[in-house]
C-alpha cells in the first residue's frame, strides 16, 4: 500500500474514532450541562422569590390556610408556596413527578423550606424535564453537525497536505519505476524543502552513479580481457592454419597440428563463452526485437534437424498457438534454444526422441524441450547451470558453460527456466515466457 494511502486512511480512521467518541459522550455531557444550567436558574428564581416575599410580605401569596401555585401556559414551569406543619428542613433540587391538570409531568424541582413568623413554609420551583430535554437535544444536534463538518474538513485538508508533502517521494518512485536498469538512470535534482527527501534523492543519485561506474569499469575490463586473450589465440590459430596448409609440412605432423587446433578451439570457446555471459550480465546486448517464439523454435529445429538424423534421434515439433516476445534479442534466444536442443541430441540414446512442445498459457507461453536421454541425477540438478559443471562427459571436451549461457540468456529476457529429470529416462527443460 502506498504511503500516501496509508496516511490518508490513518487520518480518516483517527477522526472517525474521535467523532464516534463524541457522539457517544455528547448526550451525557449536554444533559449534565443542561441540568446544571437549570439548577442555576432555579436557584436564581428562588432568590428572587425571597426578595419578593421580603418586599411584599407572604400575605400577598398566602392567605390563611391556603397555598399559592403558579404555572406558565404550557406547564413548563411552576412555582408553589405553602405552609407546612412538619419540622423537617428541606433544601434540595431533585426530579419528581407532579400531577398537573390530571396529567403527570416530570419536573426538576427545587424545594426549600423557610420560617417566617411562627410558621414554616415550603417553596417549590419546578421546570419541566421535557423542556430541558428538548433544549439539550437541539444543542446536541447542532453540535454534531458542526463536529462532522470539522472532521470532514480536516480529513480533506490532511489528504491535500499529505499529497503535497509526499509529492517529491512520488516523483522519486516514478523515476525509479521508469528505469529498467541502473545504466539507464539519469541523476536529477529534487526540488523540495523536505530534508529527508532531498537526502533520499541524493543518496539514490549517488548510488546509481556508483553502480553505473562499476558497470562502465566492468565493460572496459571485458573489452580489455577480450582483446588481450583473443589476440594471442588469434595469432596461434592463423599460424597453425598456415602450417596445416603448407605443402612442406610433413604428413606425420598434420595430425598433431589438428590436435593443437582442437585444443586451441576449446580455449577460444571457453573465453568466448565466458565473455558472452559477462556481456549479457553487463547489459551489452540490445533487447530491441520482437521475436515470434513459435517461429524461432521451428527455426532451431530446422537448423538442428540433420544433427538429430545423424544421431538417429527423432525430433518432433508440437507447437500450438502463437506468441511474440517483445523487447528481445533474436540471436541470443536462438543460441539459448539451440544449446538446449543440441544437448538433448548429444545426451540422447539411439532411437530416442526429442519433443519441442509449446502451448500458450493464460499469461505468456510455455515451451518444453523433452528428451529421452540419459537424464540427470537429482543431486546434480541444482548445479547444472553453474559454471564449469560437467555432468555427462568427463572425458569429452565439454567445458560446462553451455547451460550457464542458456540460463543467463533466459534471465536476461525474464524467462522462467526449470528442469525436471529422471536418471536413465530423460530430461525436460521448461521455458516459461513472460
Amino acid at each position, binding site marked *: 500500500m502506498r504511503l500516501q494511502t496509508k496516511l490518508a486512511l490513518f487520518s480518516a480512521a483517527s477522526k472517525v474514532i474521535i467523532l464516534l467518541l463524541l457522539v457517544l459522550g455528547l448526550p451525557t455531557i449536554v444533559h449534565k450541562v443542561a441540568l446544571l444550567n437549570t439548577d442555576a436558574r432555579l436557584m436564581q428564581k428562588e432568590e428572587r422569590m425571597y426578595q419578593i416575599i421580603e418586599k411584599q410580605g407572604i400575605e400577598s401569596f398566602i392567605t390563611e390556610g391556603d397555598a399559592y401555585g403558579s404555572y406558565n401556559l404550557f406547564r413548563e414551569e411552576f412555582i408553589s408556596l405553602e405552609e407546612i406543619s412538619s419540622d423537617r428542613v428541606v433544601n434540595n433540587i431533585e426530579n419528581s413527578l407532579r400531577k398537573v391538570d390530571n396529567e403527570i409531568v416530570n419536573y426538576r424541582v427545587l424545594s426549600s423550606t423557610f420560617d417566617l413568623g411562627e410558621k414554616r413554609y415550603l417553596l417549590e420551583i419546578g421546570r419541566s424535564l421535557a423542556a430541558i430535554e428538548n433544549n439539550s437535544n437541539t444543542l446536541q444536534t447542532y453540535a454534531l453537525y458542526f463536529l462532522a463538518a470539522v472532521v470532514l474538513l480536516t480529513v480533506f485538508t490532511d489528504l491535500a497536505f499529505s499529497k503535497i508533502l509526499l509529492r517529491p517521494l512520488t516523483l522519486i518512485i516514478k523515476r525509479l519505476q521508469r528505469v529498467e536498469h541502473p545504466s539507464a538512470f539519469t541523476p536529477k535534482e529534487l526540488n523540495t524543502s523536505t530534508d529527508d527527501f532531498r537526502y533520499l534523492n541524493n543518496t539514490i543519485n549517488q548510488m546509481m552513479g556508483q553502480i553505473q561506474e562499476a558497470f562502465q569499469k566492468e565493460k572496459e575490463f571485458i*573489452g580489455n580481457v*577480450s*582483446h588481450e586473450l*583473443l*589476440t594471442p*589465440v*588469434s*595469432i*596461434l*590459430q*592463423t*599460424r597453425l*592454419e*598456415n602450417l*596445416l*596448409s603448407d605443402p612442406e609440412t610433413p604428413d606425420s605432423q*598434420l*595430425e598433431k*597440428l*589438428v590436435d593443437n*587446433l*582442437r585444443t586451441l*578451439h*576449446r580455449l*577460444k*570457446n571457453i573465453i*568466448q*563463452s565466458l*565473455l*558472452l555471459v559477462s*556481456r549479457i550480465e553487463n547489459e*551489452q*546486448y*540490445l533487447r530491441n526485437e520482437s521475436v515470434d517464439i513459435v517461429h524461432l523454435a521451428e527455426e532451431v529445429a530446422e537448423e538442428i534437424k*540433420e*544433427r538429430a*538424423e*545423424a544421431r538417429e534421434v527423432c525430433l518432433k515439433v508440437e507447437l500450438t498457438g502463437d506468441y511474440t516476445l517483445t523487447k528481445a534479442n533474436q540471436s541470443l534466444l*536462438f*543460441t539459448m534454444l*539451440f*544449446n538446449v536442443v*543440441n*544437448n538433448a541430441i*548429444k545426451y540422447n540414446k539411439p532411437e530416442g526422441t526429442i519433443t519441442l512442445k509449446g502451448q500458450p498459457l493464460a499469461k505468456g507461453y510455455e515451451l518444453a524441450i523433452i528428451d529421452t536421454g540419459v537424464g540427470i541425477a537429482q543431486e546434480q540438478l541444482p548445479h547444472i547451470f553453474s559454471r564449469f559443471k560437467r555432468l555427462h*562427459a568427463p572425458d*569429452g*571436451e*565439454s*567445458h*560446462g*558453460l*553451455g547451460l550457464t*549461457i542458456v540460463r543467463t540468456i533466459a534471465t536476461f529476457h525474464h524467462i522462467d527456466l526449470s528442469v525436471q529429470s529422471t536418471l536413465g529416462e530423460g530430461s525436460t527443460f521448461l521455458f516459461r515466457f513472460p
Partner: protein
Amino acid sequence: MHTLIVEDETGLATELMHFLAQEHYLCDWASNGREASEKIAVNRYDFILLDLGLPDYEGMDLLKEIKEVDHDPAIIILTARGALEDRIKGLGLGADDYLAKPFSLLELQARMQAVLRRKFKLKSSSVAFHGFEIDSSARRVTYGSQEIVLTKKEFDILHYLLLHKNRILTRLQLTEHIWGNILEDDYDSNYIDVHIKNLRKKLSTHASTDWLETVRGVGYRLTV
C-alpha cells in the same frame, strides 16, 4: 588484388600476409593508425582488412578516412573486442563485412571472395568440377542437366571445400563454417562425417567421388 592489412599485432599480420600471398593477393601492412592513414592516402588498395583496436588511432576515424578516398576499396573489419556497438557502427560506416577474432583464415578468404563478388558484381557464380557444376548464388548443384538435391549443410560443405580446393579442411574448420558463431559446449566432428557420407552417396549416383578425399586423422580435401 592489392590488399592493405591494418593490424598492430605483428604475429597476426605476418600470418595474414603469408596466407594471402599464397592466395595471390598483393599485401601491404600498416602496424599503426598513422602509418595506415598515410598508406591509404598514397596508395590505391582494392581490399583493406582493418583492425579497429589500434593503439594510436580511433579505428572508426580510420574507417571514415578510407570511405573518403575516391575508389571505394572493400573493407572487412577484424576485431577482438567484439563489442556489439562496434559491429553496428562499423557496418553503418560502410564496412563490407565484420569478422571477430579469432577467425579461421579459410573463413576470412571465403568472406573476402563473397565481398569481392558482391562489390564488383561478378556475374558468373557457378563453378564446374569433375563434371559437376555448383551455382553458389542459386545454391544448386547439377550433373549435366540433372539437379542433385542437397540439404543446406551439405551444400555449404561442398561449396566450402570447393572454395578451398586442393587444401585440407579440418572437421573443425568445416564445423565452424557451417554452424557459424553458435557457441557450443563442445564440437562433435561426427556430424561432419555424417554429412560427408551423405554427400558422397548423393553425388556418386552420377559419377565417381574420388576427388573428395578423406585425409586420415586430419580432415577432408577436394582435389581438382
